[in-house]
């Protein structure tokens, strides 16, 4: 895959380049400040962009804004946003309008190289990768909602589904068969009274929309 990286910390930037190159990807450009991001993306049209939220010159949420601006011009551009901390409202902004190919992860997750690369590929192919912390917060912040009626196993399935994983990965992670994953998902949708949707990105969005609403 051809990747553009925007990260101001040189150590992390070089680390990301090394990691992606060793995994067989091609880093076509790097940006170390906000003004460089959009031109680099427009010039190289990468398969996926990896952006840090906090960038110079303001050290606020430049990376996030650049990601949103880039997607306005290139709606199909997959972006993976990385941050030192996660904020639910940022996730909502990124996913707003039913966008496909969006990732929002803590920088910590880069350490789990395989999982990180997996998330990157998922985003590049139009899927979703949402940090477990965002999903956990969405699921636990409120009592007395139908989420409470889910069994422990169903909650685990819902959590993984909301993070953007497909049935195969969920089955592997929980060490159960894909058939029982489908069964659990069916139960979850029934209990939350969500309309049954096909697998994939639309399902993730339905779940997130539900969690955001309650």
């Amino acid at each position, binding site marked *: 895959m051809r990747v553009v990286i925007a990260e101001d910390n040189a150590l992390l930037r070089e680390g990301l380049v090394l990691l992606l190159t060793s995994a067989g990807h091609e880093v076509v450009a790097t940006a170390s400040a906000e003004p460089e991001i959009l031109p680099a993306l427009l010039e190289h049209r990468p398969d996926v962009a990896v952006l840090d939220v*906090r960038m110079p010159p303001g050290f606020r949420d430049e990376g996030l804004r650049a990601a949103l601006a880039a997607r306005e011009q290139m709606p199909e551009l997959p972006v993976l946003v990385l941050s030192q901390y996660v904020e639910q409202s940022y996730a909502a902004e990124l996913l707003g309008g039913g966008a496909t190919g969006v990732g929002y992860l803590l920088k910590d997750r880069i350490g789990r190289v395989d999982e990180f690369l997996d998330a990157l590929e998922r985003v590049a192919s139009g899927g979703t990768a949402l940090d477990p912390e965002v999903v956990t917060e969405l699921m636990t912040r409120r009592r007395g909602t139908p989420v409470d009626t889910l069994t422990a196993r169903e909650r685990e399935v819902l959590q993984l589904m909301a993070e953007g994983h497909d049935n195969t990965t969920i089955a592997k992670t929980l060490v159960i068969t894909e058939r029982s994953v489908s069964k659990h998902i069916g139960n979850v949708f029934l209990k939350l009274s969500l309309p049954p949707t096909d697998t994939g990105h639309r399902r993730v969005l339905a779940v997130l929309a539900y969690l955001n609403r309650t």
Partner: protein
Amino acid sequence: MLMKAAIRQAAHATVQLARTVGLAFFSLIFVTVLIIAAVGTIALVGAALLPETVLLIRRLAGAKRRMVSGWTGREIPEAYLPITGPLRERLRTSVRDTCTYADLRWMGLHYGYGLFGLAAVPLWLLGLPLDGLWCGLLRQRALVLPLITRLADLDARWSTALLDPPPKARLAERVTVLTETRANAVAAHGVELRRIERDLHDGAQAQLVSLSMRIGLARRAYERDPEAGRKLLDEAQDQAQQALAQLRHVVRGIHPPILTDRGLLGAVRALAASSGLDVAFEVEGFSPDSPRAPAAVEAAAYFVVAESLTNAAKYSGSDHAELTLARTAKGLRVVVRDEGRGGAVDPAGRIAEAAASGAPAAGAAQQAGAERIGGSGLVGMRRRVAALDGSFKVSSPLGGPTVIEVELPCVW
């Protein structure tokens, strides 16, 4: 009718004047005592009497202040230096307090003009028959009896002018208050620094030490038993993630990153949106180009909103909350209200109904009392607000609503 009103008004003024005359007589006796005390002080006999005498002067002037503001409806402020500490210290403040000297001047003059109040007696004697004729028979406005009111007005005006603390005394009082609040703020800051130090020391630092140890063990194991080495590396990575999570937690506690990114309004809006509650968010006094509050004030306001909304979502049983953020002349006001079941309870089972103040005037005793009323979340909020010299009020009667009101002083 006219006569009745005139008599009622004059009677009211007479009561005021009678008190004035009484006070004037009393101050005459008092000035005598004062002179004796002063002479005694010089003779090093009655030195201990001086501070007590000054306190008495203050009580006397205080009585007059209340009396006058009762008549005019306008508060007359006090600006005394507090008389505390050992005798030498008390003596020094007694002699240096400019507001007390102003009180003395008032007392001397009041002895003179206070006796004007006696004029009420002949005015009554003259006024009753005269005004009785004048307005009883001729239906004209009373002439003599209103003069008694004028007399009381005059007394009030002069006393207000004399009892208003001199600018120097006001400044001195302000300095005293500021010194105290500054000391409190510095102490609170110290507590906060120690908390952060402890969090880092017990959390991330300890985890990094253990992480380094595990990597060392993995290196040793690598040659002999690659599988064991792999397991140790897995554990090391877990530990690294935990250390990072811990650091994030500490950073959030110091200054929430979203405040830097989005400012207070944006950050609070994000809180409201992600609270799981239906929050009616109202903003007062902010314009797009308003300057930002100091970072510590913004962080405290954010902390209060986050805690209050979390509590409301968890315990109130209601899914609505009202949130107001107001920029006032004196600072920032935060009000969070939910229509829940109320009865915000502390771990000891007591209900928070008292509005305990986090103001600096609240001494150690009150601080300890406040600790007992608030739950752990409330205690944290109160501390944070008190550190900034703010006020913290919580009202949560059984059956609701719960209202948390915080004022954080700052200069815009």
